[in-house]
C-alpha cells in the first residue's frame, strides 16, 4: 500500500463546510437560550463616574443587566498568562467590566442579557454612562515619553516592561564598524479579522456544578484554564468546546472578559446564554497585532559582512496586558534578531508600553514578522550603502548548511537548515539575473521595476515545556493524542490541538492510516472538546503538526505494539517472528498466516482471548514534548512595477520557496503558504488599524479596514526544499506563519528597490499609493 505521507489528498473536513452543515459557535442553540450584548466604552480614556442601567433593566425582554460593580466581587480579573521574567513586568488589574476607568474604545462597561439578540441590543442603548474624558495616547513611543497620560496608577510612565537581549559585544562592533545604517521603522497595527467573529455560548448545570462553554477558540484547554481563573470554578468543572472555528490568526488564543461574563450570567440565571460580537465590535474588542515603533541600527564591513545589530523598540500593548502579550515582542521577537544569518553581536531593548487602545497580542507570525521585517529591511539599506547586490550580502551572511545545530548570538539553537538551497531555488525560479537586466533597461526608459528578496528563518513548533516554563509562559507546550481503535477497525485520534482551517483532520488521519495500513476513510480526528481530548495547548505558533502530530504518531505506534502482542498470541507465534505487511501481522515465511488490523481491533475490544498480562482494548495515549523548537526557512522574491505618478504598486511575480521539512499533505502546505503570503501582502500594502489622537479607531468597520480582496492580490508561485527537523519523529516544521513572516519585507524591499533611482530608501508600510507618492515627492526634494 502506498504511503499517504506526502500525498495531497483532499480534505476530510470539507464536505460539511461546503454544504453548510458545519456548526460554528454562533450556530449553537439550546433550550431556553438567552442572548447577551456588551456596552463598550466610546472613550479611549475616561473616568467612569456613573453607569445608570435602571432603564435598561426595565426594557422589554431584558432578563438582567450587569455592571462592573455588580460582578467585581464575583469574578476575578482577566489574567495575563505570559509572565516574561527579568524585565520587571507590570500587569495591572484588568477587570472584566470597567470599574472606575475605561482604557480604550471598546473596553467593556456593562452586559445586558435578554430573550433575543435584538432586545439585548436595544437595551444597550438605554444605559446612561457619565464619563470624564481623560487624555488619550495611542502611539507607544509617545506613551513611553515623559509627561504622557498615564493609564494605570500601578504603572508609572506606562512602561509595562523593559526587556533586553544581548549577545557578543555590540558596542564594540558598532564602534569599530566601517559601515553603519540606521532606520526608524513603524510596524503598522493590524486587525486580525478572522472571518468568523468571536462568540461564546455558556450553559451552567447547577445540579452537577458543571459549566459547558462553547468558545471560538484556538486552544480550548487554555480557555478552560483562563475561564477557571476568571469564574473561580475549578478547571475540572468546566468543559470547553471549540466547535468549528472560522479562522483565528492569533485572535482566538487569548482569554477575553466576554467569555467569563457570559459564563457568569448562565450561572446566575440558570439558563444558557450566548454572545456573538459583530464585526465593528470585533475591531474594537478583539486583540490587534504588531504596533511597534523601532529604532534599528546595523553595522558591517565594506564588503558585506554584517557584524552587529542593535534595536530599541516601543511595542504597544494597548490598555491591558492580554493573555500572551508580553511574550510576543520579547521571546518571539528579540530572540529572532539573527534571522538566518551569522550576526555575532546583537543587542535589543524592548519597551512594552500601555496605550489607550485595544490590547495587542499574537497575530499570525507574532513577533517574528516584525523581527524578519526589520532585519531584511536593514540588510537592503546596508547593501545599498556599500553598493553590493542585496542577494550577495545575504548569501555572504547565511549560516552555512553544515553548521547545524547552530547557536545564534541571542542564545537560541536552530535545529536544521539549508538556507542557500532555498535561496538558489528561488533565484532560479524568478531568473534573478534576467530581471536585473530588464530592470536596468527599464530604468533608462523611466520605468520603475523593483525586486525584493527575503531569506528568512523563524521559530515555531512551540515548544519544549521546560523552555516555556523558563520564559514565563503560563503552561506547558507539549501536546497530546489518544488513538483509539473501535471494534469495527475504525480508528479515532482525539487530539489536544484545535485546527481551525489548517486541515489536521486530514493530515493526522494520513499519519494514522499509514501506521496501520488502513484506508484514510477509516480514521477520524476529533478535536476541540476538553472532555473528549487529553490536555493540549492549542493551535498557534505553527505547532500543531510538529508537536501534536508527533503525539498522534507515537500513540499510533503504541497501539501497533499492543496489536502485535495480541497477534502473536492469536497466531501462537513469537512477536519476533511477526512482520507487518499490507495492514496485517503475518508470520515470517508463512504469509497466509496472519491477523489483519480489523481482526485485531475486534479481538482486542471483545478480549475473548488476550495474551496473559495484556489489558483488553486497543488504544494508547501519548504526550509529546519536543526537545527544541523547529526553525522553518526559505526565500521569497517579489517583483514589482511602480507607477511613480500615482504611487501605485503593481506586483509582477511572487515566488515563495519554503522549507518546512517533509510535507505530509503538499496541497495543504501550499494553501497555508498562499494564505500567509496574501495576509502579509495586506500588511505590506494596505492594512492599518488607524487611531486618531483621541483614541478613536478610524478603521472601525470593514468599510475602512482594507482586508485584501481577490481582485487586489497576485498569484503566488510556490516551491520547496526539504530539510527534516531532528527534534520530532515526523521531521516536520511549521508552515502556518512563514508566508506572513516572509512576504512583508519582500514586498517593501521590492518597492524600495524600484524607487532607488529616485533616492527613496525607506517607506513605512502599508505602502498605499498616497504613502508611496509622498515618499517619491520627498525624495525629489519637494513637499509631500
Amino acid at each position, binding site marked *: 500500500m502506498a504511503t499517504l505521507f506526502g500525498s495531497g489528498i483532499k480534505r476530510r473536513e470539507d464536505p460539511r*463546510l461546503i454544504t453548510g*452543515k*458545519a456548526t460554528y459557535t454562533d450556530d449553537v442553540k439550546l433550550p431556553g437560550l438567552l442572548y447577551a450584548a456588551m456596552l463598550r466604552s466610546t472613550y479611549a480614556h475616561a473616568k467612569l463616574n456613573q453607569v445608570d442601567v435602571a432603564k435598561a433593566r426595565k426594557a422589554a425582554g431584558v432578563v438582567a443587566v450587569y455592571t462592573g460593580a455588580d460582578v467585581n466581587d464575583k469574578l476575578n480579573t482577566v489574567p495575563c498568562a505570559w509572565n516574561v521574567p527579568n524585565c520587571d513586568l507590570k500587569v495591572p488589574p484588568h477587570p472584566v467590566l470597567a470599574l472606575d476607568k475605561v482604557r480604550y474604545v471598546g473596553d467593556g462597561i456593562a452586559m445586558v442579557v435578554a430573550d433575543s439578540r*435584538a432586545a439585548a441590543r436595544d437595551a444597550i442603548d438605554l444605559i446612561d454612562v457619565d464619563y470624564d474624558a481623560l487624555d488619550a495616547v495611542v502611539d507607544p513611543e509617545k506613551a513611553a515619553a515623559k509627561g504622557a497620560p498615564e493609564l494605570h496608577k500601578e504603572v508609572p510612565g506606562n512602561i509595562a516592561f523593559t526587556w533586553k537581549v544581548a549577545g557578543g559585544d555590540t558596542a564594540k562592533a558598532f564602534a569599530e564598524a566601517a559601515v553603519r545604517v540606521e532606520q526608524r521603522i513603524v510596524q503598522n497595527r493590524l486587525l486580525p479579522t478572522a472571518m468568523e467573529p468571536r462568540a461564546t455560548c455558556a450553559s451552567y448545570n447547577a445540579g452537577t456544578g458543571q459549566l459547558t462553554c462553547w468558545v471560538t477558540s484556538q486552544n480550548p484547554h487554555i480557555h478552560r484554564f483562563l475561564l477557571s481563573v476568571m469564574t473561580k470554578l475549578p478547571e475540572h468543572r468546566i468543559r470547553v468546546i471549540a466547535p468549528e472555528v472560522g479562522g483565528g490568526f492569533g485572535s482566538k488564543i487569548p482569554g477575553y472578559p466576554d467569555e467569563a461574563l457570559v459564563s457568569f450570567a448562565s450561572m446566575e440565571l440558570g439558563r444558557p446564554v450566548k454572545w456573538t460580537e459583530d464585526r465593528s465590535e470585533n475591531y474594537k474588542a478583539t486583540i490587534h497585532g504588531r504596533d511597534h515603533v523601532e529604532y534599528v541600527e546595523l553595522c558591517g564591513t565594506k564588503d558585506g559582512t554584517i557584524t552587529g545589530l542593535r534595536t530599541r523598540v516601543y511595542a504597544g500593548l494597548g490598555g491591558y496586558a492580554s493573555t500572551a502579550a508580553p511574550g510576543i515582542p520579547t521571546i518571539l521577537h528579540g530572540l529572532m534578531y539573527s534571522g538566518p544569518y551569522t550576526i555575532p553581536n546583537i543587542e535589543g531593548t524592548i519597551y512594552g508600553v500601555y496605550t489607550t487602545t485595544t490590547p495587542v497580542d499574537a497575530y499570525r507570525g507574532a513577533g517574528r514578522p516584525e523581527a524578519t521585517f526589520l532585519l531584511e529591511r536593514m540588510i537592503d539599506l546596508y547593501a545599498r550603502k556599500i553598493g553590493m547586490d542585496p542577494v550577495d550580502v545575504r548569501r555572504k551572511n547565511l549560516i552555512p548548511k553544515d553548521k547545524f545545530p547552530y547557536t545564534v548570538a541571542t542564545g537560541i539553537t536552530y535545529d536544521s537548515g539549508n538556507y542557500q538551497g532555498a535561496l538558489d531555488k528561488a533565484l532560479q525560479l524568478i531568473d534573478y539575473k534576467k530581471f536585473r537586466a530588464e530592470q536596468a533597461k527599464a530604468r533608462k526608459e523611466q520605468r520603475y521595476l523593483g525586486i525584493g528578496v527575503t531569506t528568512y528563518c523563524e521559530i515555531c513548533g512551540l515548544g519544549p515545556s521546560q523552555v516555556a516554563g523558563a520564559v514565563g509562559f503560563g503552561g506547558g507546550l507539549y501536546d497530546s493524542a489518544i488513538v483509539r481503535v473501535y471494534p469495527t477497525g475504525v480508528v479515532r485520534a482525539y487530539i489536544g490541538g484545535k485546527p481551525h482551517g489548517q486541515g489536521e483532520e486530514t493530515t493526522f488521519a494520513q499519519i494514522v492510516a499509514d501506521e496501520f495500513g488502513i484506508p484514510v476513510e477509516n480514521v477520524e480526528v476529533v478535536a476541540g472538546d476538553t472532555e473528549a481530548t487529553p490536555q493540549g495547548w492549542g493551535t498557534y505558533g505553527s505547532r500543531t503538526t510538529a508537536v501534536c502530530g508527533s503525539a498522534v504518531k507515537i500513540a499510533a505506534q503504541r497501539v501497533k505494539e499492543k496489536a502485535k502482542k495480541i497477534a502473536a498470541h492469536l497466531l501462537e507465534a513469537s512477536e519476533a517472528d511477526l512482520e507487518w505487511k499490507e495492514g496485517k501481522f503475518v508470520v515470517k515465511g508463512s504469509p497466509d498466516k496472519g491477523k489483519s488490523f480489523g481482526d485485531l481491533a475486534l479481538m482486542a475490544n471483545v478480549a475473548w482471548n488476550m495474551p496473559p498480562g495484556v489489558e483488553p482494548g486497543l488504544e494508547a495515549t501519548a504526550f509529546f514534548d519536543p526537545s527544541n523548537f523547529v526553525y522553518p526557512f526559505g526565500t521569497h522574491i517579489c517583483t514589482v512595477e511602480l507607477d511613480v505618478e500615482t504611487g501605485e504598486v503593481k506586483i509582477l511575480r511572487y515566488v515563495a520557496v519554503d522549507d518546512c521539512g517533509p510535507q505530509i499533505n503538499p496541497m495543504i502546505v501550499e494553501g497555508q503558504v*498562499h494564505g500567509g503570503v*496574501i495576509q502579509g501582502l495586506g500588511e505590506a500594502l494596505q492594512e492599518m488599524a488607524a487611531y486618531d489622537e483621541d483614541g478613536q479607531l478610524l478603521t472601525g*468597520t470593514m468599510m475602512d479596514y482594507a*482586508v485584501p480582496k*481577490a481582485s487586489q492580490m497576485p498569484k503566488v508561485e510556490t516551491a520547496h526544499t526539504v530539510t527534516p527537523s531532528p527534534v520530532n519523529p515526523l521531521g516536520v516544521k511549521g508552515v502556518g506563519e512563514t508566508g506572513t513572516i516572509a512576504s512583508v519585507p519582500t514586498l517593501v524591499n521590492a518597492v524600495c528597490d524600484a524607487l532607488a533611482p529616485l533616492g527613496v530608501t525607506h517607506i513605512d508600510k502599508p505602502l498605499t499609493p498616497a504613502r508611496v507618492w509622498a515618499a517619491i515627492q520627498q525624495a525629489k526634494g519637494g513637499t509631500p
Partner: protein
Amino acid sequence: MKRTITLTVNGAPRSVEVEPRALLAHVLRDQLDLTGTHIGCDTSQCGACTVHIDGRAVKSCTMLAMQAEGHAVTTIEGLAANGRLHPLQQAFWDKHGLQCGFCTPGMILTAADLLAHNPKPSEAEIRHALEGNLCRCTGYQNIVAAVQLAAGAR
C-alpha cells in the same frame, strides 16, 4: 408588531413570523435554522451571508426578511441536488478552495451567480466577481482555481 411572511426556501414553501426590522440573514439563521448562511460583518463587505434570491446572489444582511416575501431563496443547504454536490461545491473541495470554511458558502453562491451569467469567465473576471466576498485564509488562489474548474466542468 410581528408580521407573517411566506417565501420559498430551498424549494419548499415556508411561513415565518418576523419583526419588520429583522434582516433576512438573521431570520434564515435564527428562525429557519439555516446556519450555513454566515455573518462576518455588519457593513455588507464580507459576503459570508450571500444567498440567492430568485437565482441572483444577494447579501442577505442587506435586505429585510420582509423584502423576501413571495421570493425564492436558495441557501448553501439547498445547493446540492438529489444528494449530488453542486459543481462548485465539488470544485472547492477538489481544489482546496477553503480552509476555515466560514466564507465558503457565500463564495460558492456568488461564484454560482457568476457562472450562471458568464459561463467561461477569465481569471480577472472571476477575481472581480468575488470582490464582495472576503476570505482571510486562502489568499483566493485556490478559490479562483475552483471557479475555473467548475466553469470547465459545465
